[in-house]
């Protein structure tokens, strides 16, 4: 009995360091940010409680509104375009191509390139007189060439497309991991039953792949909501506020305008957003998951 107690306390001690670091550097700041979001605070004077004013102001702030709109566009694009493409790519990369190793490596390589370097490369490629327009000119004509990152209509769509350079390969990698964990004898059994092509995909591959779908959807949404480096480095949200993301707007409110209370409110809004999306999405995909 005494030994039992002792072991319990030792287990507690094992848990303590992780709990302490996580609590102090993750949870405590988060809980504080909930409080600060109801205050006016510039970091110098004491915070003044102002109720919901910060939250109300968000909806009349052009940076935040455009940031929200763009962030939603990015989420939608990730779910509707990026995911199906990544799944298709994973299915292809899972087949026995002669050049399979080369193909896989080419799609994974961009994943490890940092967004800083990505923006340096693509910033050059996409300049008005850069490589990309050099290729496009004979195809779409000189009059349609533009500074893709420099106009109100094209800057954010261009950034969305740039995220795909890494996004597709990353999601395909996770799908591929999922595909490889599906036991092959299921396919053999289905083959004997006479199932073919799309039916095989629809009734075996997709249901078995649902855990990966859950992970990929979650990562796509979180990735979209955290989009910061590319717009910060390539357009700084411009021209005007056309390529702001919510994260960039929060960053500017905090570290440019020193409007801490307001920035935390927007951060909390972003958090609520992520949590809602996660719950809804888990609700949808978990139901379809097959327990192995």
């Amino acid at each position, binding site marked *: 009995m005494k030994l039992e107690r002792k072991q*319990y306390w030792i*287990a507690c001690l*094992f*848990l303590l*360091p*992780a*709990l302490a*670091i*996580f609590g*102090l*550097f*993750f*949870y*405590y*700041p*988060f809980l*504080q*940010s909930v409080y*600060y*979001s109801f205050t006016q605070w510039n*970091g110098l004077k004491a915070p003044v409680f102002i109720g919901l004013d910060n939250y109300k102001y968000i909806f009349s702030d052009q940076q935040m509104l455009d940031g929200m709109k763009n962030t939603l566009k990015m989420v939608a694009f990730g779910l509707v375009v990026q995911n199906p493409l990544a799944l298709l790519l994973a*299915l*292809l990369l899972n*087949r026995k*191509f002669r*050049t399979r190793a080369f*193909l896989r490596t*080419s*799609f994974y390589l*961009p994943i*490890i390139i*940092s*967004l*800083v*370097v990505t923006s*340096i*490369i693509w910033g*050059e*490629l996409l300049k008005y007189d*850069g490589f990309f327009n050099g290729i496009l000119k004979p195809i779409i004509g000189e009059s349609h060439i533009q500074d893709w990152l420099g106009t109100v209509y094209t800057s954010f769509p261009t950034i969305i497309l740039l995220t795909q*350079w890494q996004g597709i*390969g990353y999601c395909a*990698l996770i799908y591929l*991991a*999922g595909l490889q964990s599906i036991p092959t004898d299921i*396919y053999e059994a289905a083959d004997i039953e006479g199932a073919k092509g799309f039916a095989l995909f629809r009734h075996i591959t997709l249901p078995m792949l649902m855990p*990966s779908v859950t992970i990929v959807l979650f990562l796509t949404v979180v990735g979209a909501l955290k989009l*910061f*480096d590319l717009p910060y*480095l390539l357009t700084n949200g411009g021209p005007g506020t056309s390529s702001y993301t919510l994260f960039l707007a*929060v960053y500017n409110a905090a570290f440019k305008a020193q409007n*801490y209370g307001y*920035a*935390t409110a*927007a*951060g909390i809004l*972003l*958090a609520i957003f992520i*949590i809602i999306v*996660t719950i809804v999405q888990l609700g949808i995909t978990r139901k379809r998951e097959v327990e192995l």
Partner: protein
Amino acid sequence: MGLNKRPSILLEIVLILVALSFLFPVFFLVESSFKEPRYFFKPFALPHSFYLDYYKKALHDMDFFRGLWNTVLVMVGALALAIMVASMAGYVLSRRTERLFRYAYLFFLSGMVIPTVGSLIPLFTLAVKLHLMNTRILLVLIYTAGFIPFASFLYAAFTKAIPRELEESASLDGCGPLRLFFRIIFPLLLPATGTFIVTNVYGIWNDFLTPLIFLNQPEKMTLMPQIVQFMFNKQSVNYGPVFAVSVLAVLPLVVLFAFTQKYMLRGLTAGAVKG
């Protein structure tokens, strides 16, 4: 799906073309960094000779090796600390069933959903209060805190596969709990450790935002913000040196990637195991 049939050659050619277009930006980066200024903006004109001036200039104008040292320091520190505390936590989370441990599990789980944007400012003031502002230790602690949920679950999942009898016989032999863990359990959790490292090296190495906010002395700066600083100082001038520095910063990751690509795939499968 005709799993065992070889797919058509036409499909393969299309895929190869798409793959080459994905590789092109990387090729462009490396190629341009070796190109004389007058050819710099002509991507299809291959460099005539290895033009190394950009590298000389970059290493002269920017303290690259300091940035590299800082990045490695922060990365190794954060991975080591996270591995130590998360393996211990994951181990007891999987072995104990008392209420405290179930709550701790939920506590960590909620951390996977809560995004860190809003917390940046309180974290900033916390760092000032603790006199950790502008230190690399702060980065290590912030990264570790962020890793703890995922890493603990990973270790918990791997602990399940270790038979309890092992611990029982060891403790009968008079082995103390700390020694038992680090001598017997921890080595058995090595696959989890490998998975954790392989999947998280890139995130720290490439992080731009965290050092941007929490470090402001050049001599402590990590590579990514250092490169951005270097780029902003060079505006309107030739981008060659910026490309050269980018190649140097990407190179260690490419080498690592070449050796661990297989494990990355495996790591992601393991990460998908429900804890």
